[in-house]
C-alpha cells in the first residue's frame, strides 16, 4: 500500500515512545528491565494471536491485548507484600470495571455526543479511577488493566442475562487498546501525583515516600 518513508518512521517513533513509557511503567513495578521487555514483546506479538471460545455468545480473546496483561496483573497481585495492597488492587479493578461498564450504559450511543473519543474515554476513565482507588502504582495498574477486562466480563454477563445476541472480544485493538491505555495512564497518574506531592511538601531528598 506504500506509505511514505517519513510517515513510517514517525509511526515507528510514536510506537517506540509509547512502548518506552509502557516499559518504564512495568519497570516501576519491581519488574526487571528484561522482564518488562519480554512482556512488551509478548503483548506486541500477541496482538496477532486470537483464540475463540464457542458457545451461545462467541468470545474472542486476544493474547497480547488480554492474556498477557491478565498474567501480569495476577503476578502483581500475587507478589504484593501487604494484604491490604492486594485487597486494594482487586477492589480498584472491580470499581473501575463497574464504572467503565456503567459509562457505556449511561452515555449517549452516538459518538458525536462524546467529547472524548471512545478509544480514549474508557481507557482514560479507567486510568483515573484506578489511580484514585488504587493509591499505589501496583494497585493502580491492576485496577486499570483489570477494570477494562472486567468491564468486558460485565458485558458478557449483560448479554447472557438479557439474552441479547452479541459477542465479546477481550483486548485486540493493539497498543492503543483501552486495556493498555488504562494501565499506563493509571501508573502515570500515580507518578504525577507522587511528584506533585513531593514538591508540595518539599520532602528532603532521599525520603520520598514510596507508594
Amino acid at each position, binding site marked *: *500500500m506504500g*506509505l*511514505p518513508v*517519513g*510517515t513510517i518512521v*514517525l509511526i515507528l*517513533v*510514536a510506537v517506540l*515512545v509509547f512502548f*518506552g*513509557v509502557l516499559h*518504564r*511503567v512495568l*519497570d*516501576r*513495578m*519491581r519488574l526487571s528491565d528484561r522482564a518488562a521487555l519480554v512482556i512488551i514483546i509478548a503483548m506486541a506479538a500477541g496482538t*496477532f494471536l*486470537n483464540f475463540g471460545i464457542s458457545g451461545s455468545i*462467541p468470545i474472542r480473546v*486476544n493474547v497480547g491485548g488480554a492474556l498477557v496483561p491478565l498474567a501480569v496483573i495476577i503476578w502483581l497481585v500475587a507478589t504484593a507484600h501487604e494484604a491490604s495492597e492486594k485487597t486494594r488492587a482487586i477492589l480498584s479493578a472491580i470499581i473501575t470495571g*463497574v464504572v467503565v461498564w*456503567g*459509562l*457505556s450504559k*449511561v*452515555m*449517549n*450511543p*452516538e*459518538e*458525536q*455526543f*462524546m467529547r472524548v*473519543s*471512545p*478509544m480514549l474515554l*474508557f481507557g482514560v476513565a479507567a486510568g483515573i*479511577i484506578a489511580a*484514585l*482507588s488504587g493509591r499505589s502504582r*501496583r494497585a493502580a495498574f491492576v485496577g486499570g488493566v483489570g477494570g477494562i477486562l472486567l468491564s468486558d466480563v460485565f458485558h458478557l454477563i*449483560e*448479554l447472557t442475562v*438479557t439474552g*441479547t*445476541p*452479541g*459477542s465479546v*472480544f477481550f*483486548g*485486540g*485493538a493493539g497498543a492503543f*487498546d*483501552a486495556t493498555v491505555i488504562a494501565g499506563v495512564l493509571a501508573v*502515570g497518574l500515580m*507518578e504525577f501525583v507522587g511528584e506533585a506531592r513531593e514538591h508540595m511538601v518539599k520532602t528532603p*531528598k532521599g525520603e*520520598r515516600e*514510596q507508594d
Partner: protein
Amino acid sequence: MTVALLAFAYYNYGPVWRRASAPGMEGSLERSDGYFTVQDENARTLFTTGHMVTVGDEFIDENDVRYIVERVSGDVATARAVGKMEALPPLPFVSAQAGQGENTGSVGIYHTHSDESYEPTEGTSSVEGRGGVLSVGKAMAQTLDEKGIEAIHDDTLHGPHDAGAYDRSRRTATQLLKQKPLALFDVHRDAGPAEPYLKDVDGNDVARCMIVVGRTNPKMSANLDFARRMRDAVNAQTPGLVKGIFLGNADFNQDLYDRALLLEVGTEKVSREAAERGISLVAAAVPRLLGTTTGQPGLGGGTGKAIGWLLGLAVAGTFVYLWIATGSWEEMKAKILGWFGTGGVRIGGRRRDGGSGEA
C-alpha cells in the same frame, strides 16, 4: 466517587432527549428517534440525517460544494455554502487496467451498529443479533467478489447499541486491518424519512448512500480525500447515488486507517432490498475507485496533516517518556542540557529511588 463520575458523565454525555448541550443548541431538546434537517441559507434542504448535527459540522454535496453548519435550532440546522472544494489532484501512476475488474486486493466490511434494520422489510428499526444492515454488508461483499475484489465481511455483533459499540467495533476493525485491506467500510443505515434517500434506477427503488467522515480524527483529510474519490467514482456510474459527504463531530475509528469510511445506506424507512440494491451499485464502482488509487502513497491529500499529528504526538510522547524516565522536571532538564553539552543521554538510567522500582 463512582456515583459522582457517573453523574458527571450522564450530565455531559447523556441521552439527547435529556440535554442537548452542543454549541448552538442551547436549550433545545431532541428526540432519540428523530432526525435533523440541514438547510442552506435559502432554506433549501441539503440532507436529512439521524446523525447528531452540531455547529462546525460540514457537508460536501454531489457537486463538491462545501457547507459549514452555523446554527442548530431544534431539528433544523442551517449551513452556509463556502464554495467549491479545491479540485482533487490527479493521481500519477494510474493503473492502466483501472476499472477492468482485475483483482486489486481486499476490502474489509464490518458493522458497528449490527442491530440497525429496515422497517418495511423487518418490521422494526433494530433487531439485535440480526439487523438488516448485516445483509446489506453481505450484498456489498458479494458484488465485490463478483468484481474480482476479495471482500472480508466481518459480521461480528457489537450490540447492544450503546456507547461501548464503537469501542467494541474498534477491536474488529483493528483485526480486519491486519489483513491489509485496500479500504475499510463500516456499513450503517441512517435515520429519517425514506424519500431523500431513495432513487429510481431502471424502475427500481434504490437506497442512496451518504459517506460519513469523522472530523475529529487525525486522518480526517486523508479519509475525506478518499471519500471524495469514492463519491465521484460511484456517481460516475450511477449519478446521484452518493448524496454527499457528512463530516461529523467524532472519529468513528477512522484514525485507524486513511481509507476507512462510514457508509449510511438508506434509512430505517426504506426497504432492505432497496438498500441491498444501493450498496451493490456502490460496490460495483469500487474497482474503479481502487484502480485509480492502487499504487498510490495512500494518504492522499491528508499526508501533511497526518504527519503533523504524528510529529506532535511523538514530541509530546518523548517529553512524557523523558519525564517518567528521569523522575522530575529538574533531572529531565539536566539530562536534555547534558545531551547537548556532552553528546549523549542515558534515558531510563539512574533512578532517584535507587533503582528498586518499588511499587
